[in-house]
């Protein structure tokens, strides 16, 4: 990706995604944290489009920015007498150390490895190709995923049922 548009888009989307994620971790109110989380999800969707994964970008907006964030808001409003603040436990500094160490390790490995990536063309429209792959080569995991979703739906209903 050498053209100026891709470079500018990458840095803008990276700043949006990472900044919103840091705000999610730092802000002191859970509802505001959810709003920042949605921003971060939208930044990741933009990065998917930049990586020429158009179908995944749309799926990211629908599922993460749409469904999962609404689910989180529902969980917040269904626990009304619980504390709404986004505070840390006593594990703040150990968690910071572990997360920072893992982050540094992954970054060091990613920069030290010769990935051998050549200047490859992006994917052309991926939606139909993903649809064909899901119904040909990946048909078994596709069916298993439907059973998983059914089980998760029944489990969620049973867990929150008032009896």
């Amino acid at each position, binding site marked *: 990706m050498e053209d100026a548009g891709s470079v500018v888009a990458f840095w803008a989307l990276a700043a949006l995604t990472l900044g919103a994620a840091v705000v999610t971790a730092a802000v002191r109110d859970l509802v505001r944290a959810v709003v920042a989380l949605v921003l971060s999800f939208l930044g990741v969707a933009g990065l998917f489009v930049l990586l020429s994964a158009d179908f995944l970008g749309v799926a990211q907006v629908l599922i993460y920015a749409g469904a999962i964030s609404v689910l989180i808001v529902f969980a917040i409003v269904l626990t009304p007498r619980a*504390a709404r603040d986004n505070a840390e436990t006593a594990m703040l500094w150990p968690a910071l150390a572990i997360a920072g160490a893992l982050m540094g390790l992954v970054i060091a490995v990613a920069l030290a490895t010769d990935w051998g990536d050549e200047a490859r063309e992006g994917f052309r429209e991926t939606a139909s190709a993903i649809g064909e792959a899901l119904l040909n080569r990946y048909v078994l995991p596709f069916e298993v995923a439907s059973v998983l979703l059914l089980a998760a739906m029944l489990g969620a209903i049973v867990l929150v049922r008032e009896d």
Partner: protein
Amino acid sequence: MSIGLEHFLVLSALLFGVGLFMALSKRNIIGILMGIELMFNAVNLSLVSFARFLEAAERLSGQVFVVFSITVAAAEAAVALALAVAIYRRRESVDVDRINLLRW
């Protein structure tokens, strides 16, 4: 300058680190779940960038893997938030410091 695979991998590592920090340190169960979702996003981002930069254009296994990963993440979020609501019903709290039933 051009944008390569390393840029996306470093961004994904940073995002994963923020998510891991939230999942390890937050007091509220819902905050922990938000951290887990951030980690899911970071891993999906690295999978898509590997697919974009290393995979042959006619194969789409990296992107199909992300489709399944998003599916499993959605199921996980639904069950985990149902668990949070169920815990709240029993104990009037979603504070992990006070959910210490198994503490020895």
